[in-house]
């Protein structure tokens, strides 16, 4: 279902907070389209810090395996990355559907290590929204009484338990299975 306890604006705002605190920069300088690496000079430790902060804010678990790894796990070695480290046509097709936007500069033959530069505030926020949208109809206690005090963490107002969202890796796999069924990419 699509949940309406946490808004898209709130998620973008929280990602900006996480980025601003991690990098010690003014929040107003961060835009949804800012590339963490190219525009904001984030390094890999910063990436980890930002993601851990976001997980804490929303009570979610993001994917620990990037989609290219899931593609190869599911559709076989060489299905996403060739032996020179270049993206396959099918990997690019899936990345474009997954990230739901144009990816300028990413085509079949792009080096896989060019991808992180395309990670933006908005693309992180989109990933968070996808996880939040897995909010189950009912809590494990049986109540259907979700609520959020801060517009970020969703909990059951009957038993007080935090919402159990699908984790990012399970979500990626479910998504790949669904797209494969619909579009027969492989």
């Amino acid at each position, binding site marked *: 279902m699509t949940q309406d306890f946490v808004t898209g604006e709130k998620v973008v705002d929280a990602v900006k907070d996480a980025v601003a605190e991690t990098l010690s920069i003014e929040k107003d300088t961060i835009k949804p389209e800012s590339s963490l690496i190219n525009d904001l000079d984030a390094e890999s430790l910063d990436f980890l810090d930002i993601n851990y902060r976001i997980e804490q804010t929303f009570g979610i678990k993001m994917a620990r395996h990037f989609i290219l790894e899931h593609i190869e796990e599911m559709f076989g070695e060489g299905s996403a990355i060739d032996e020179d*480290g270049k993206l396959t046509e099918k990997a690019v097709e899936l990345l474009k559907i997954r990230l739901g936007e144009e990816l300028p500069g990413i085509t079949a033959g792009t080096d896989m290590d060019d991808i992180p530069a395309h990670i933006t505030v908005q693309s992180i926020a989109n990933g968070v929204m996808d996880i939040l949208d897995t909010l189950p109809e009912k809590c494990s206690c049986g109540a259907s009484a979700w609520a959020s005090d801060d517009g970020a963490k969703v909990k059951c107002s009957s038993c007080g338990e935090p919402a159990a969202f699908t984790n990012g890796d399970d979500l990626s796999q479910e998504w790949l299975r669904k797209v494969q069924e619909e579009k027969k990419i492989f």
Partner: protein
Amino acid sequence: MIKIHQGVDMVNTSKLRDICMRHEGFVSEIFTEREREYCMLKKNPYQHLAGRFAAKEACLKALGWGLQGIDSIMQEIEVLHSPSGKPELQLKGWARKLATKFGITGRTVSISHSGDYAVSTVILTGEKR
């Protein structure tokens, strides 16, 4: 012909320590049990964790795999020690699959620290196909 893949990375020890303190689970998610045991016995554990983090990141650069978030691949690149104390890299999971894909057969790692910084270089070699 031999193909060489190189990677280098530098880590600020205080920054790493700060992240370890703020995020419960960071240390056990990024470092293997053997790495944690080795580092935690040292007088300055965070300097050694920073060196290992730099080695993992240098190895990722040599493999051409950039981080996009919290990635299990950090656990799959393990820094071990030969009996003489020389560091060695052990790869498993996705890290190993990438290395196999690129025909990598040899690897070396070097780690150094000074003051608040740790630095590492990794060289991976393979036959050019």
